[in-house]
């Protein structure tokens, strides 16, 4: 008899420490499902970042490397260059990737490093208790933006659209943005991850999937309310879809140029 649905082999059968309604657990699960489908569990290595997902090495049932905050893409570079036939997953939060580790991600992407970044955008610093992230929306409250993010007088800057930022770099081949707020988006996000992992193992270049993810605890919301807030506030600003796809055999360029019917 064929098993249609079960616990992924690449994920240990234990309960996570993540808060109720947190996106990290769902993202872990779809990563594990893709790895199982590709049959690469014993060839996978995750760099788990400093952030709530520092715990991911407790849950994934394959090798892991834990680097310093934000240096995740540099460490992934070292690993992948040594083990080019392995699936290297550079898992990062928005503070890790878009604040302290901005230099590391831009240059890893620009060199076309052949690992896949899973960029978990929850618009907040989860682990340290709800400080403003580079991706915090304008007006969104955080412990360090108590009156809401104010790019004007308070000079707090604007939320960074990371996929769009990286799309200009020659080394990036696949940049997609998904969300884990409902079943349909989870399925789509899983497809993006699979595409990125397969491209990685073909050695095509830098691939990243950004995933919009709820942090009910630090947003000060119930889990259901948090998913509604994500849909109503994050998705309109962080557009879902394949932002850039220049993988072999694909039609696309960057999303803006293809919708404009512009140059490839």
């Amino acid at each position, binding site marked *: 008899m064929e098993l249609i649905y079960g616990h992924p082999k690449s994920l240990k059968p234990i309960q996570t420490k993540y808060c109720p309604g947190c996106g990290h657990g769902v993202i872990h699960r779809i990563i594990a499902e893709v790895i199982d489908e590709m049959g690469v569990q*014993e*060839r996978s*290595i995750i*760099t*788990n970042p400093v952030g709530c997902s*520092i715990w991911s*090495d407790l849950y994934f*049932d*394959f*090798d*892991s*490397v*834990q*680097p*310093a905050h934000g*240096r995740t893409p*540099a*460490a*992934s*570079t*070292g*690993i*992948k*260059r*040594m*083990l080019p036939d*392995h699936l290297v997953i550079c898992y990062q939060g928005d503070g890790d990737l878009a604040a302290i580790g901005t*230099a*590391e991600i*831009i*240059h890893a992407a620009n*060199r076309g490093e052949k690992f896949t970044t899973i960029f978990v955008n929850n618009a907040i610093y989860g682990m340290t208790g709800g400080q403003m992230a580079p991706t915090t929306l304008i007006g969104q409250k955080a412990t360090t933006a108590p009156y809401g993010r104010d790019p004007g007088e308070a000079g707090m800057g604007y939320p960074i659209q990371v996929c769009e930022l990286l799309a200009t770099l020659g080394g990036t081949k696949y940049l997609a943005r998904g969300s884990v707020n409902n079943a349909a988006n989870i399925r789509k996000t899983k497809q993006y991850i699979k595409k990125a992992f397969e491209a990685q193992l073909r050695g095509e270049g830098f691939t990243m999937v950004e995933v919009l993810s709820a942090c009910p605890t630090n947003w000060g919301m119930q889990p259901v309310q948090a998913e509604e807030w994500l849909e109503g506030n994050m998705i309109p600003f962080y557009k879902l879809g394949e932002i850039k796809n220049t993988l072999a055999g694909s039609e696309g360029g960057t999303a803006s140029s293809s919708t404009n019917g512009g140059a490839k």
Partner: protein
Amino acid sequence: MAEEKRLMKGNEAIAEAAIRAGCSAYFGYPITPQNELTAYMAKHMLDKKRVFIQAESEVSAINMVYGAAAAGARTMTSSSSPGISLKQEGISYACGADLPCVVVNVARSGPGLGGISPGQADYFQSTRGGGHGDYFHIVLAPKSVQEAADLTYKAFELADQWRMPVMILADGLIGQMMEGVIFQPAIDPASLPRKPWATGHQADTHREINHISSIHLVPAELEASVRARFKRYDQIKAVESRYEEVNVDKAELIMVGYGTSARVALGAMELARKQGIEVGLFRPITLWPFPDKRLGELAAKGKRFLSVEMSMGQMIEDVKLAVNGKAEVSFYGRCGGMIPTEEEVLAEIRRILKK
């Protein structure tokens, strides 16, 4: 077949020795006075289809080393003082995760941007665990191009043996000067044994999964892991301390100096001898572990010491700890990229000995 003697800069000799020691990945960022090292690695690592990356910063370079080491490779980065400050975060993590790697500091003079002339003012940073947390790592100090090459092979061996970063602390003079050097035969990286604790290649053996990490959020667990590491440090102190002695038996005064300062001290020793004054040199080759036992023995024999440094006095603290009040310890140093002259050191010797 015996290797030929080649005339080379210290920086290039370190690079060539690293390649021969089986380094399969080098990551660096330009900084004077070590640029020849990075350029040599670029040319010869790429020629050999090994990994060379000019990183976007020293912070990135050391973290690439962290990743490559976690994947089981022999790996290295090099820089000079300001860049080494940036690497300290990564060195602390590598020490906390027990990752072997080689870090070369072709030191210049600080603080801040300072100058590009040779200095020995990074002694504290190198020997005291220059980043955060309770840790040490081996520090090797060459005094010649030949020794720079020899210690580079040794550094990779020691790093793998003790699972820790090993630093080569040279200075701009050792890096820039040319001398004859004979290299040891090359090791093929593929011939090195796999490291059972490293990540990757799980499919070959179906072993348990491996985690490389420095995190322990339970205080008792972190304490146990630090204590276990310090037990290893005790073993290292017992077997790895290295030094060279010249004329210490006859000497009325023993100079203590490493690297370039030791060369100056040797010159001062000759000048002194011509004037009928017998002095000696004690040259630590490992700055950590510091060869304190032997210095203590010499102190017990009634010797007195003069620490000669290119700093305002850093190694002298280790000399004083080693002699533990049993002998008088004086200091002569220049800083800011100034190198003490043999005559200056001789004048200090005569002043101390009242001769």
